[in-house]
């Protein structure tokens, strides 16, 4: 029975020849570009054998199953087979399909099928579409064979059997497949042996056999193989679902402990991820990096078991170390305590992460520790949340480097998994009257550099919290999202009226002393008359207050204050007065300088009823 295929329906099969080798070479541009002889080995010592090789390696005398030591004598590059990279290459192959059409079938690890319906209007003839596939595959560092046919199986076999681009017109399937060996149809071992005994070696010979007799001898498999050989086997496309996270993995032969070589590897992975994102016309909303740690981490784990505090990487490492200990779960002394500590801190981390997502906490870098099982405990994760979707691999690498410099992995890294959360690319419509604003990608890099300089908690955009507690605010991630309509409207108004909108009346600003300055206040008839702080003696000229404020009485950190606005006249200072001056304030403004510049001033002073002391909150400037 002939296939029932609609006219003009076409499918493209994309096949990556020598998939295992290409998966490894994809991450090694130098080997790939110079077409060096490469052989892949696999197995456990001492039985490590060659499992794949490229053409140059075959020519150099490499054979399948050859021992690694023998292969080394052939003068070829030896690499270990990497299933992680094969997985990533397969994902890249699928992305290639989705970059052109939403209807993609995941046929095999090295082969996909793409429905070409509707692509003619974009790319023209089938041959052009196939060329476009090959071009995009090259951008993903894959060399592919592309075959186009109205029959799915014919396209697959043609892609596996013919190099380059093959377009098979409808009705000529059998003719094109005739020269292909029977092995291309992937028969079972028994069927292949029988066919070889019969002398059937090509699809043409198989297709010429009578169906009934073939069925009697080989059963249904024989009938199916013959249909395949004649290009008459029909079936529907089985659609694949796009992955939500694009991931690339790399296993390292030796543990990497320094940032420079690590950045080199991360750069490669980012290049691959960004190429895949570009293939699907997407950008990354977040980059997730997971490091599998090697021996150095074991040492740190050992130090923890020996009750040696881990202080090298600060609080975060303590958390990490606690995670390791709790994850061991061997019932050793102190394990339960570590578990409890981990649980408590993990809750804190989880809360912080949740808050961050809802933009209510500081922009401290996301940090997570896997503590569910022993294997997972040896991983170290970093999440780079991006304010706007990006896919510039160099920019992303700089941001990752800054994060890793601030909080490096605790040990040697043996495996890296880098994933990207896909998002729609940023689209902005610039206008003539829209004010200039920092480029979001450049701004993110600048902010990351500043965060490295001053600390994550010391940079951001302040936001007032919903409380009456004086001086409360939180730092948010700075991202000046512009209301373009508003901006355009405002700027337009400026343009028309030849001048900026009337400025609001200015208000007096206040400078806050952080931390608060301890003061000694002399009261007269219940109000401040003299004040001593920062080694200065001042006479209160005018006072306004007390303004009694309190709150959070149901919490442990309840506050109750009496606030005064004071106009103070300093008389040159009284060095005999003992005042608690914060150490860092000496560095910022030594007392001599303070005296020279503070002859009089307006200050906000308060009495803290909780600790029964006076403090200077700030200065009106």
């Amino acid at each position, binding site marked *: 029975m002939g296939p029932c295929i609609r006219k003009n329906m076409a499918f493209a099969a994309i096949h990556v020849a020598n998939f295992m080798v290409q998966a490894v070479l994809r991450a090694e541009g130098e080997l790939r570009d110079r077409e060096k002889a490469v052989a892949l080995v696999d197995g456990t010592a001492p039985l490590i054998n060659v499992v794949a090789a490229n053409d140059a390696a075959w020519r150099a005398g490499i054979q399948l199953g050859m021992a690694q030591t023998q292969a080394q004598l052939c003068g070829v590059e030896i690499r270990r087979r990497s299933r992680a990279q094969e997985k990533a290459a397969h994902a890249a192959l699928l992305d290639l399909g989705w970059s052109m059409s939403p209807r993609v079938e995941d046929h095999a690890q090295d082969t996909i099928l793409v429905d070409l319906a509707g692509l003619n209007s974009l790319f023209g003839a089938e041959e052009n579409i196939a060329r476009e596939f090959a071009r995009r595959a090259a951008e993903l560092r894959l060399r592919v064979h592309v075959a186009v046919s109205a029959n799915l199986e014919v396209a697959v076999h043609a892609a596996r059997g013919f190099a380059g681009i093959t377009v098979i017109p409808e009705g000529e399937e059998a003719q094109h497949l005739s020269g292909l060996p029977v092995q291309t149809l992937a028969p079972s071992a028994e069927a292949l042996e029988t066919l070889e005994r019969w002398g059937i070696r090509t699809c043409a010979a198989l297709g010429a056999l009578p169906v009934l007799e073939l069925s009697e001898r080989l059963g249904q498999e024989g009938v199916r193989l013959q249909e395949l050989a004649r290009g008459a086997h029909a079936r529907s496309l089985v659609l694949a679902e796009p992955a939500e996270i694009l991931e690339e993995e790399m296993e390292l032969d030796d543990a990497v402990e320094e940032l420079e070589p690590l950045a080199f590897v991360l750069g490669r992975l980012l290049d691959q991820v960004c190429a895949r994102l570009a293939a699907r016309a997407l950008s990354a909303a977040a980059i997730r990096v997971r490091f599998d740690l090697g021996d150095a981490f074991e040492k740190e784990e050992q130090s923890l078991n020996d009750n040696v505090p881990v202080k090298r990487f600060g609080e975060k490492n303590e958390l990490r170390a606690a995670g390791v200990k709790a994850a061991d779960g061997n019932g050793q002394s102190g394990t339960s305590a570590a578990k409890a500590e981990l649980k408590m801190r993990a809750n804190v981390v989880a809360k912080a992460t949740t808050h961050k997502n809802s933009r209510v906490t500081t922009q401290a870098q996301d940090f997570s520790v896997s503590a569910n099982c022993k294997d997972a405990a040896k991983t170290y994760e970093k999440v780079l949340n991006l304010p706007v979707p990006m896919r510039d691999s160099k920019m992303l690498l700089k941001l990752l480097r800054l994060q890793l410099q601030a909080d490096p992995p605790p040990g040697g890294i043996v495996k890296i998994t880098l994933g990207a959360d896909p998002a729609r690319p940023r689209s902005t419509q610039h206008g003539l009257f829209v004010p200039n604003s920092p480029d979001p990608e450049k701004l993110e890099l600048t902010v990351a550099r500043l965060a490295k300089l001053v600390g994550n908690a010391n940079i951001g955009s302040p936001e007032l919290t919903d409380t009456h507690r004086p001086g409360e605010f939180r730092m948010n991630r700075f991202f000046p999202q512009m209301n373009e309509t508003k901006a355009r409207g405002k700027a337009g108004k400026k343009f028309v009226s030849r001048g900026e909108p009337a400025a609001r009346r200015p*208000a007096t600003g206040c*400078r806050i002393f952080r931390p608060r300055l301890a003061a000694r206040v002399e009261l007269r008839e219940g109000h401040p008359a003299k004040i001593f702080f920062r080694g200065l003696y001042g006479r209160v000229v005018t006072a306004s207050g007390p303004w009694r404020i309190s709150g959070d009485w149901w919490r442990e950190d309840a506050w109750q204050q009496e606030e005064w606005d004071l106009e103070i006249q300093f008389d040159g200072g009284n060095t005999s007065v003992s005042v608690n001056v914060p150490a860092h304030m000496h560095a910022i403004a030594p007392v001599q300088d303070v005296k020279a510049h503070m002859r009089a001033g307006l200050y906000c002073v308060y009495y803290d009823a909780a600790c029964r002391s006076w403090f200077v909150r700030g200065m009106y400037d």
Partner: protein
Amino acid sequence: MAANFAALRSKVELALAGRVVAPFNYRDRQEVVTVSSGIPEIDLLTGGLPRGALTEIFGPSCSGRTSLLLSALSARTAQEEACALIDGGDAFDPHSAEAAGVELRKLLWVRCRNVEQTLRATDLLLQGGGFGLIAVDLSDIAPRLVRHVPLDSWFRFRRAVEDTPTILVLLEQESNAKSCASLGLRLEAGAAGWSRMPVEGVADYSRLPWGWLLEGRSARGEVSRSRMQRGSEVFLRGGFAAESRAASEGIFKTRMDLDFFSLPIPAKRK
């Protein structure tokens, strides 16, 4: 002699090739674009804050530097411009900033702990670009420390901000940038303004301190340096025609009494 001079000139040009386009050509001074500082009196006095230039605001404590800065930030953020504050002494108060009208989500606040951090952060932000106003607050840093900042730092800032739409504002206790600043504004503290409840026979706060309210304070401003072209701005012409005390080639000195902080302090209790 002329041949030597020509050879020397070509040698210098060759050495600077790729870095300086025409080292011996006169560079026309571009017209300064100014924007409002948010305080009409200051605009009248100075002509506004110049874009692409360094503005130095200096004066003792309580002289109104912070109030002026908040007004400028308020004016810029109201125009949807992104602003940055490099806080050398970590003294910025978001509450009074919001009360002054600063749109906080448009403000990048960098809390530094010393002069080195402040200067480095300024470098990074200037290189990043795209900000409408970058304020460097060194008010709480001891003047003797700021005095030790090499002059080339100020030159570098001036060069970095040139030909950009960014306003670079420097807040200090003393003038340090000198000729690198296109506009120097010195502020002096004036009298504080108090209002009191009209209670008969009570003239002193000590009898009724809760009846007194701090309304604000006045200040005095003086332009110590201005490189803006004379008469190029409406504000400038008005201000200087009336008050100019000394003027020489592009450098103006003038002073004006300001009462620009006469509104109530935006404390939460008001």
